[in-house]
């Protein structure tokens, strides 16, 4: 990127920083990251919400079904409830794996060097917070961008 040599504190200023973000946003690497992220989280969210609401609706309206015995004193309602726990744990594990195998390498492939040093510039423009950056010496300002990813 062209502004790579602009040095610390982003000599380009806020406007350049914002333009660079638009460029990164449109880059094929970033588009790939975004669609991979959305392709996982949106359907998965829809799936677990439907699955959970099905459980709640059955609890409200299908009490005979929920009360049916499966084995011993254990009925459908209890099994259904325990399956909600199981599905929650499973989705958490699946997402962790997906994030490590797919999303993290894709995020690393996005070239953000054009904005990596303009943190002061965009914060100064009132973007995130009125007070810029954390004070020197705070652990999270020491590392480079790469170190923090």
């Amino acid at each position, binding site marked *: 990127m062209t502004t790579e040599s602009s040095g610390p504190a982003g000599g380009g200023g806020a406007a350049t920083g914002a333009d660079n*973000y638009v460029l990164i946003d449109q880059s094929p690497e970033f588009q790939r990251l975004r669609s991979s992220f959305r392709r996982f989280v949106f359907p998965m969210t829809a799936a677990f919400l439907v699955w959970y609401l099905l459980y709640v609706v059955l609890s409200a309206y299908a009490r005979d079904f929920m009360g049916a015995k499966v084995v011993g004193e254990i009925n459908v309602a209890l099994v259904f409830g325990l399956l909600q726990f199981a599905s929650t744990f499973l989705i958490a594990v699946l*997402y962790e794996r997906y994030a490590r195998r797919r999303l993290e390498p894709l995020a690393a492939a996005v070239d953000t060097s054009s904005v990596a040093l303009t943190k002061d510039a965009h914060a100064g423009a009132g973007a995130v917070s009125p007070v810029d950056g954390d004070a020197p010496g705070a652990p999270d300002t020491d590392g480079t961008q790469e170190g923090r990813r």
Partner: protein
Amino acid sequence: MTHALTVAGPAAPVLAATENEHRTFSLVLFALFVAVTLYITIRASRQNRTAADYYAGGRSFSPLQNGLAIGGDYMSAASFLGIAGMFALSGYDGFLYSIGFLVAWLVALLLVAELLRNSGRFTMADVLAFRMRQRPVRAAAGISTIVVSIFYLLAQMVGAGALVSLLLGSQSESTKIWTIVIVGALMIFYVTVGGMKGTTWVQIVKAVLLMTGALVMTVWVLAKYDFNISTLLGAAADASGKGQAFLEPGLKYGATDVWSKLDLLSLGLALVLGTAGLPHILIRFYTVPNSRAARTSVNWAIGIIGAFYLMTLVIGFGAAALVGSKAIAAQDKGGNTAAPQLAEALGGGAGSTGGAIFLAVIAAVAFATILAVVAGLTLASSSSFSHDIFASVLRRGKATEQDEVKVARIAALAIGAIAIVLSIFARGMNVAFLVALAFAVAASANLPTLLFSLFWKKFNTSGAVAGIYGGLVSAVGVVLLSPICWGGKSDTIPKGNVDALFSETVVAPIPLQNPGLISIPVGFLCAYLGTVLSKERTDAKYAELEVRSLTGTGAH
């Protein structure tokens, strides 16, 4: 603090010798927990130098530590004692609550945690206001943060007053008031002195204690039934006096007409969508170094919270089987003492030393639970007051970091003092509905705005402002028109509500006790309408938010 605790003693009625035994032991354990947490807080305060230290614990916690702290922040006395009590009195319906509380974490994991960590700094409003005009959005988000936190705080503190007096076997008003004052004073100390670091450590210690206590009880109960769940369930159903219905949904929720079934759906929606909009939970994601740690800490939290709610199932049914629903309801009609009573029964029953000791241990765990949660709430609301309302709205972004932290400390003191006074006035009221209301406001006001901010390019300032106020006003408004305030008899509530806040005879205009079914769609709709009715576009800032939230570039 130990001195203050013993002050409550003389006002209590004289009790039998063994009750005195467990009371003394309870007080010793309370005092021990307080001493340990005060020490930790003071130690943590020595490392508090910057605003990032105060608000976000220096962003230096590990995923496991933060996962435990999230659990400590989230598993309130209402979860531990309330859900165990619900299992013990209403059987299966306790499960509806705990499952909602757990599944909700997937919203936080998939849609919120990492993106928030990457693009925000100290508060929820950092992300909501990222693309927008700062002052109106931060004012709205600050108000909603403080409202949600105060509702939740009141429920916890009034509950603490009632609970500690129950556990100490004293029904006197002065015990309740002293408990509220002591809990309030401690939480103010943790927050003002320890900041996020101190508060986090209090939550970690509490989470470990709570999980250990729950695990011991669970294994103990299961051992009594040869680790056969079916036998335990059968014994619980027999002892409950309600037979098979005890093991099926419907004893508590959705028992009467069409409205009460809708109420169950309403509750379910608010539980599953509320968690990811609770400000005191959201700010926990800032305490780790990066987004990967934020994600992993949520996964730890899901494991810890899930395991905990599975254990409350055993504890609650165990209490029903071993103590009996009648004996539990006789002690507290809400069932909040089911877990401590079970502990007494497991330890050898009333009058035995073992029973007294285990009761005291579980009582102390409950006390620790309350303290950790109220500290988290005070921190979230005071941070938002300082960072959003003071620094951005009042000073227009010109406050120094030192000023901000100073104001945050003063705000913690003020919010804590207000909470103490309100709780003392509200101590005789049934405020359990405030927890459900806090979840409903979080789901109706905060979540729509948060999701639209992160995922909808056209979203803008007026959409964010409309969404927050629309969700907030509709959630509170529905409750003001509900059976919680108007307790007249109706088809939905055949017995009426004698605890109604305004009237026991007037029938509520809206028969729903949980506002979510109405207020959540209203929140989303207001956010949508506010957006399309305004011409403002924030495309360039949205590009920046997308890049930063997904890649972690420029993250604090």
